[in-house]
């Protein structure tokens, strides 16, 4: 018998028992549809993340941070991410670009609205990377010293849902208030000689022999000096104001490792805001005190950055770059590394979903076993006749195996289509809800070719496995007994 003969004979037998075949195939269809729709969800999410990584060029991006461990007295001073270090990082083989994350807070006047928003400085070269490639309108700034700014979609929302095209060419009035440590120190120091003499007049010279008196005077004077320092520090704020033209709108990234501030300003233009002193907010102040840059001046030449982004050569391996960065005393975060870990997570996730789908398939396979056993019991005499005509055990076994294989193939094929229809329906509902909640339309499901082939393969293999026992039983039928059967 040829394979075609087996398929023809088996299909004919299944067609004869239409209702039973329909019910058995339906079990496989439901199981495969459940399997496909569940794995499709995992595949859809994997595809979304992969697309985002590729669109943003994250696989060729590395983030560099200072070490979090505070140096001990005996240890070497912790490496600082300053401008000199940024240039040094850019020299590492395999690194095509290095730019710092230099963020600060500004008040922005746009039309009649004033809002407080985060801003970040960015070199023009960085705007040519994929990270900032999702330009929604306009262009990026023309030079590092251009009096232009690029805003993100987040900024448009903050400013009252302004249209991306209509903001191009509009003026943004940026104001930053900075506090300087110099003004605090200046307030401590007396302005006139008479003030110094008055300070000394208050001190009873004879009593200086008493240690307790000296302590009390010193504490009182120190307290007064501190009060004057904070008064001078807090009240001597410098106002920096600049007007920039909006030249472009980018999609931006609101969350995660590569958060984009709502306003992006050319590197040299931003120096005006960052070199004035520490930003006028408690977080920046305590941050400066914590990282030891309180007296280190503003964000200009001597400033340190919390983060530097490295753009890597796609052809160069990231491992040597990471080793070099770590050797320089910094921590680094490689998206390529994270992505490979993420892929493993997705494999486990898909496996877990697949196992749930397989449980349904195992149930369906019991239906196949039942159908085939019933079929053998009903066709015992037919098996005897076939054997009397020259069929050997292998022919009979294959005949029934192909029968269960046909059930699996039809069930898997219809199940894949059915599963796809389920995902389309679920996707339509999810998209409607996401749009309502302010998210973009994200496709949560995907039906890649590997999933179609896997589902088809699993459907066939499981049905063949289910048909193996009944087929072996059919092959063992004694023809003499079978021919006597009623």
């Amino acid at each position, binding site marked *: *018998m*040829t394979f*075609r*003969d087996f398929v023809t*004979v088996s299909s004919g037998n299944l067609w*004869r028992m239409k209702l039973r075949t329909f019910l058995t195939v339906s079990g496989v269809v439901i199981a495969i549809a459940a399997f496909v729709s569940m794995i499709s969800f995992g595949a859809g999410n994997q595809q979304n993340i992969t697309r985002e990584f590729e669109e943003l060029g994250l696989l060729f991006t590395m983030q560099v941070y200072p070490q979090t461990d505070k140096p001990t007295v005996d240890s070497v001073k912790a490496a600082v991410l300053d401008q000199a270090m940024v240039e040094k990082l850019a020299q590492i083989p395999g690194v095509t670009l290095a730019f710092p994350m230099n963020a600060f807070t500004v008040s922005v006047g746009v039309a009649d609205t004033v809002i407080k928003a985060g801003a970040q400085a960015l070199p023009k070269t960085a705007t040519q990377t994929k990270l900032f490639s999702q330009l929604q309108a306009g262009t990026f700034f023309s030079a590092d010293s251009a009096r232009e700014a690029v805003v993100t979609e987040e900024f448009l929302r903050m400013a009252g849902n302004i249209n991306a095209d209509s903001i191009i060419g509009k003026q943004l009035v940026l104001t930053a208030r900075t506090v300087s440590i110099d003004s605090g120190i200046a307030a401590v120091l007396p302005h006139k000689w008479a003030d110094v003499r008055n300070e000394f007049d208050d001190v009873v010279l004879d009593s200086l022999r008493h240690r307790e008196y000296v302590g009390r005077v010193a504490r009182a004077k120190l307290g007064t000096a501190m009060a004057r320092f904070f008064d001078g520090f807090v009240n001597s704020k410098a106002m920096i104001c600049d007007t920039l033209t909006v030249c472009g709108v980018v999609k931006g990234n609101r969350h995660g490792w590569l958060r984009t501030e709502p306003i992006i300003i050319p590197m040299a233009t931003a120096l005006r805001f960052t070199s004035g002193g520490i930003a006028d907010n408690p977080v920046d102040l305590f941050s400066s005190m914590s990282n030891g840059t309180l007296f280190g001046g503003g964000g200009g030449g001597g400033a340190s950055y919390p983060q530097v982004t490295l753009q890597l050569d796609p052809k160069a391996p990231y491992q040597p770059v990471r080793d070099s960065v770590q050797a320089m005393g910094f921590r680094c975060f490689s998206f390529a590394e994270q992505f490979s870990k993420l892929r493993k997570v997705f494999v486990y996730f898909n496996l877990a979903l697949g196992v749930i789908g397989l449980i349904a398939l195992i149930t369906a396979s019991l239906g196949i076993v039942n159908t085939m056993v019933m079929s053998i019991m009903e066709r015992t*005499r*037919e098996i*005897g*006749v*076939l*054997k*009397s*005509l*020259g*069929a*050997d*055990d*292998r*022919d009979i076994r294959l005949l029934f195996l192909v029968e269960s294989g046909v059930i699996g193939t039809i069930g898997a094929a219809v199940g894949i289509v059915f599963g796809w229809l389920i995902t389309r329906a679920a996707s339509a509902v999810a998209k409607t809800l996401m749009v309502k909640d302010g998210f973009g339309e994200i496709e949560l499901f995907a039906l890649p070719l590997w999933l179609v082939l896997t589902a088809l393969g699993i459907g066939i293999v499981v049905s063949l496995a289910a048909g193996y026992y009944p087929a072996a039983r059919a092959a063992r039928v004694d*023809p*003499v007994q079978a*021919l006597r059967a009623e």
Partner: protein
Amino acid sequence: MLNLLAGLDTPTSGRIEVDNVVLGSLSRRGLAAYRAHRVGMVFQSFNLIAHYSALENVETALLFNNTPRPERRRRALEILERLGLADRVHHRPGDLSGGEQQRVAMARALVKKPDILFADEPTGNLDHDNTGQMAELLTALNKDGLTIVMVTHNLDMARRCAHRIIGMQYGRLVEPDRQKPTEVGS
């Protein structure tokens, strides 16, 4: 006995040799091939597959001896026509008379051109007319050179058709071999 001779059953003792083939020396697969290529079988109860047409029943006999599909169809139609069933080829066994069913069974046994035909009470379920027709058919086939081993309770028919008659009761010979009258056959 026919089951043993056709290789469907195996003897608990003794040795069966058919046309120089010792059946006991054949594997299960070898026995299947022996049935597929050399043996034709006709049963008292016809043993046609109920959901197949007459044509499909006959074609089934050629499934297991590697006959190509178009050849199967051609030969099945040819033998059915020869047995007077040209207008009944697409009928199922349930739609055929007993005589027609037995002729389909005969066509199925003959279509693979066997060396030996084993017939187990081929007229047992037939009326008088059909029994006569079947006897004529078997005689004609025998004259064409086909060896036929037939089990029957119809001694008249046996005397009319057979070259050699062996009587059996409870599996034992009960009367000696005897030659058929010379006027019936050579």
